């Protein structure tokens, strides 16, 4: 337990120390919120769907969590390159504890980043339907964070080259974001797109947040179903991450 905590704390400390990273990683979500949110707002409204900012805020929060969690995998590559990974690999502790500590650290950083964006959406005009739903929404944010931080650990344990990792991330992160219905509704999609969105774990995260934050009827699948899917995918990805991590050779 102490080991998990120490490695978790390490990730969080490093995050809090890198102000530049904090500010810079707000850029992407802010751009989407600003450009799409205000740009497409009138169209959305004319289509009779209400406020686009209101609709899109959960998607942008999901995006921030996705990006931060996925890029937490980079820490694996840094540690491999600059050696700290070896220090943990020869320590007399189970690999699983190391993997869990790192993954939870990455997930926590993603939740912190998601919280910042949440505050920003409030400033931009987002109004959650009820204050009581906000803590529950954070549960979903945490689930999304764990799902993608575990996926990042699995990828980071497998790929050794920085360039390779960046490529894989670009090929994964953007599709996961665009196929998640973060910026469009799930109703009435073409069949292929509808099928793809259902394969994307982020879809359920964003859908669940909408259900909680925007109010009744705005979750396409229902919040309970969303949570169930995220939990299962989370277990699957953590297992995959643990398996890949256990096979690292120095």
């Amino acid at each position, binding site marked *: 337990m102490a080991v998990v905590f120490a490695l978790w704390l*390490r990730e969080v400390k490093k995050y809090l120390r890198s102000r530049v990273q904090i500010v810079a990683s707000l850029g992407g979500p802010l751009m989407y919120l600003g450009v799409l949110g205000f740009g497409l707002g009138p169209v959305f409204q004319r289509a009779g769907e209400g406020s686009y900012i209101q609709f899109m805020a959960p998607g942008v929060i999901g995006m921030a969590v996705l990006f931060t969690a996925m890029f937490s995998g980079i820490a694996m590559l840094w540690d491999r390159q600059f050696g700290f*990974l*070896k220090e943990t690999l020869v320590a*007399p*502790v189970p690999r699983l504890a190391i993997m869990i500590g790192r993954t939870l650290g990455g997930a926590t950083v993603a939740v912190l980043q998601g919280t910042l964006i949440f505050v920003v959406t409030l400033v931009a005009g987002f109004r959650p339907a009820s204050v009581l739903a906000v803590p529950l929404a954070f549960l979903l944010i945490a689930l999304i964070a764990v799902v993608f931080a575990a996926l990042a650990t699995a990828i980071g344990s497998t790929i050794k080259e*920085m360039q390779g990792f960046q490529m894989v991330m670009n090929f994964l992160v953007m599709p996961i974001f665009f196929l998640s219905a973060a910026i469009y509704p799930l109703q009435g999609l073409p069949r292929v797109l509808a099928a793809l969105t259902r394969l994307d774990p982020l879809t359920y995260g964003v859908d669940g947040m909408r259900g909680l934050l925007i109010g009744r009827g705005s979750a396409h699948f229902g919040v309970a179903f969303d949570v169930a899917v995220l939990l299962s995918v989370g277990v699957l990805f953590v297992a995959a991450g643990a398996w890949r991590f256990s096979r690292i050779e*120095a």
Partner: protein
Amino acid sequence: MSDRPIIRVQHVVKSFGTVMAVNDVSFDVRPGEIFAFLGPNGAGKTTTIKMLTTLLRPTTGSLELDGLDVTTHQRDVRTRFGVVFQDPSLDSELTAWENMDIHGVLYHVPRHPRRERCEVLLRMFELWDRRDDLVKTFSGGMKRRLEIARGLLHTPKVLFLDEPTLGLDPQSRNQMWTHVRNLRATEGVTVFLTTHYMDEADRVADRIAVIDHGRLVATGSSAELKDQTGADSLEAAFLALTGTTIRDESATAADQMRQVARVWRR
């Protein structure tokens, strides 16, 4: 002092595909001695250290540390040694103290003794005043000292040092060896080290093993090796044992590519 060797390596073979990195190597290290492992580039030094530190499994043969089989008792063996790898393994975004502290947690050193021991070691290695500075602001010599201090935190029986003075200036090298020799007096730890610098091995090691092409070619004290080869310096003895051809670790085209890739990844 007991006669049981602290490290016992018997007929160890490690092959990577068709390459025999270590080929039927056997040797013993006695408790409390400073044992130097010498060899040209690519001779199998680091591979041997990686096997002894549980990072690689031998293809065949057995390795024992403090009477425990290294491959079957990984966890117990890991608590018994400290290691300073060839490449640095500190977290440069953390402070010296935090690096020490995390190590203590990883090795289950309880909080109170951990703090005391961190302080003792940081003072011993003259890093106490810089304990709250980020490691990325440290010089090469300071980083090495911190790594050794960290490797000793859990009071290991054996300390592995893989080329600890590589890339250090003569002052830092000198200081490093003074520290290593003091360690035996203060900590009673067995030191297993590799180095390229013959004069250093000559000065600091009780016994020396020379490895070449994955095979052990000689073992003994510096004086014994000189006698054996009729050379007047350890360097001459080393050259007599291993020949004067320059070793190229990157022998094949594929190896060379890997070498280039490694540089780019830095």
